[in-house]
């Protein structure tokens, strides 16, 4: 049994390597649920999912079921989805609309802010029973930025501003692409799962090193990936024509970290300038009409590829979507992929984004499936005790400050961002909640 001391946690993470137990040890996973998912700011959902009073969605924060509701005063609430009577999960649908949340078991009835408003057969309640003490528990801390709702299940800890603040520009990068400056999460979701640890997906979203080999099956004989964006004639050059080396443009990409485990990668320009299709051209026109030509040009110049808001969500900038990572067990993870609708963009543009996301990131997609195979095989390989260490040392010592962005920078094919994740990981894990 893990003795949970600072020293033991510290021994699992070294400067350029992590111990295999962080992926395989069920005790470590239990501790992560308590010390990371029980305390960190976690992405819950988007306010557009609960557009009208009475709308709700149910999600798990770590393994704890919660409900995000729109209360009748217009506010968004995050409630623990557990009846205060005998413990049944109150809201059972993935999403729905209800003016009251009623527990199926004995009919306890809660308002959409969690207040207990009805107890059947009240004359049976004990004398000391106080209805006002039995509201659904609320997430102790909730914060929102441009529709992105985060919650912490701990009353104390790093503030929303301290945790999310440095990543607001990454949220802006996506939201600003909408002519009306707002997103809608109303295009369904992709769900996939794999037999592997949650951190394998977290590490992968900013991993530019794996692409030429891991996604070789998506690259044609000229080293070019299939066109993934509306209006592009071809995709990114990933491999040089001799197929023996990674394309120079790929190797030049940068990765960044701002602490807290967060990070992002810079983009590779594709057909910029040549990007054109009826849907894209119309979108560009509408955006320019709303925000001005110069601003539209700036918004449409890709800067970010993928952004990780540690520990449970990422914003993906090429095939635009928001990804939410849900740990289930030490060797089982579910991932939810939300297409985002750019409010104010032509329907044809949003439709193109949704369709291309099907082929890049559905469970049946061309890109994500090879990653899923990599995650499953990593988990299998990590059973081996041939060595206890997983190497994350690429570029160790080559980090440099980016004063303009107030971040630390490195080549994206290196592993600085993974090391940054483990620094945050160890920070959470060393301290009891």
């Amino acid at each position, binding site marked *: 049994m893990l003795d949970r001391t600072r020293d033991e946690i510290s021994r699992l993470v070294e400067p350029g390597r992590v111990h295999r137990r962080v992926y395989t040890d069920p005790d470590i996973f239990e501790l992560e649920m308590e010390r990371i998912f029980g305390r960190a700011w976690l992405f819950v959902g988007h306010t557009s999912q609960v557009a009208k009073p009475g709308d709700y969605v149910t999600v798990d924060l770590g393994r704890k079921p919660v409900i995000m509701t729109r209360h009748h005063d217009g506010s968004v609430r995050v409630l623990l989805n557990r009846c205060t009577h005998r413990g049944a999960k109150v809201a059972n649908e*993935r999403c729905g609309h209800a003016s009251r949340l009623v527990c199926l078991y004995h009919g306890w009835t809660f308002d959409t802010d969690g207040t207990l408003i009805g107890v059947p057969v009240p004359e049976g309640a004990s004398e000391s029973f106080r209805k006002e003490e039995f509201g659904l528990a609320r997430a102790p801390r909730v914060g929102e930025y441009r529709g992105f709702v985060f919650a912490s299940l701990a009353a104390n800890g790093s503030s929303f501003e301290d945790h999310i603040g440095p990543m607001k520009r990454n949220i802006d990068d996506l939201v600003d692409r909408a002519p009306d400056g707002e997103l809608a999460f109303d*295009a*369904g*979701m*992709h*769900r*996939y*799962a*794999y*037999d592997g640890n949650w951190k394998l997906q977290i590490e992968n979203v900013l991993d530019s090193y794996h692409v030429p*080999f*891991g996604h*070789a*099956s*998506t690259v*044609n004989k000229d080293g070019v990936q*299939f066109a993934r964006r509306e209006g592009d004639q071809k995709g990114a050059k990933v491999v040089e024509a001799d197929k023996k080396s990674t394309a120079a443009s790929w190797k030049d990409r940068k990765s960044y970290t701002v602490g807290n485990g967060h990070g992002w990668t810079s983009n590779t320009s594709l057909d910029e300038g040549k990007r054109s299709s009826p849907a894209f051209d119309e979108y560009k026109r509408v955006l320019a009409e709303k925000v001005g030509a110069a601003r539209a040009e700036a918004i449409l110049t890709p800067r970010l590829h993928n952004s990780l808001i540690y520990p449970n969500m990422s914003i993906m900038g090429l095939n635009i979507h928001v990804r939410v990572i849900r740990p289930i067990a030490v060797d089982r993870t*579910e*991932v*939810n*992929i939300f*297409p985002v*609708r750019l409010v104010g963009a032509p*329907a044809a543009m*949003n*439709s193109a984004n*949704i*369709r291309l*996301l*099907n*082929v890049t990131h*559905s*469970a*049946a997609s*061309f890109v*994500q*499936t*090879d990653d*899923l*195979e*990599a995650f*499953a095989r990593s988990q299998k390989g990590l059973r081996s005790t041939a060595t206890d260490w997983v190497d994350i040392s690429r570029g160790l010592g080559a980090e440099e400050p980016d004063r303009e962005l107030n971040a630390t920078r490195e080549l994206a094919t290196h592993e600085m961002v993974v090391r940054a994740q483990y620094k945050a990981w160890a920070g959470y894990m060393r301290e009891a909640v």
Partner: protein
Amino acid sequence: MTDVPVGGVAGIDRRPFEDFIVHEARLLDARRFRDWMALFADDGTYWVPAVPDQANPFDQASLFYDDRDLMKTRIDRLEHPRIHVQTPPSRTAHLVGNVVVEAADEANREYVVGSTVIMVEYREDKQRLFAGRQRHRLRRDGAGFRIVQKRVDLINCDAAFEAMAVPI
């Protein structure tokens, strides 16, 4: 798909339709993906919705929604030597039954054929079962048919799936 008719179109011989759909399933089991794609009309699509009763593939996510271009990219990848998620490849067995010709538009020579599909997939020590209702929109083409749309509504379409590398 809640409006699935129980009966079929009266007076139409369903055997040529059933033969065609069985042939299509056998091509998939044989991994003859290019021959499978050739069954689709030039404007043909292959659609596997991600929610029950999904109204359209344009404003909601789908597991699959391939036109001929995307189908070709998918198959190029399935034939790529370094498709990790098919190393080793899946083995599948499709069973198609309960075939009903639901609608016939003789003027345009188009037909809607409903059926039930079960696909068992084996790969890497795991066997998975997929089941659902299919609806083929077929266009008569000489002595045979071309697929205008194949839609597969899996009974668990909104589940979290492990990687699905081959079409249902």
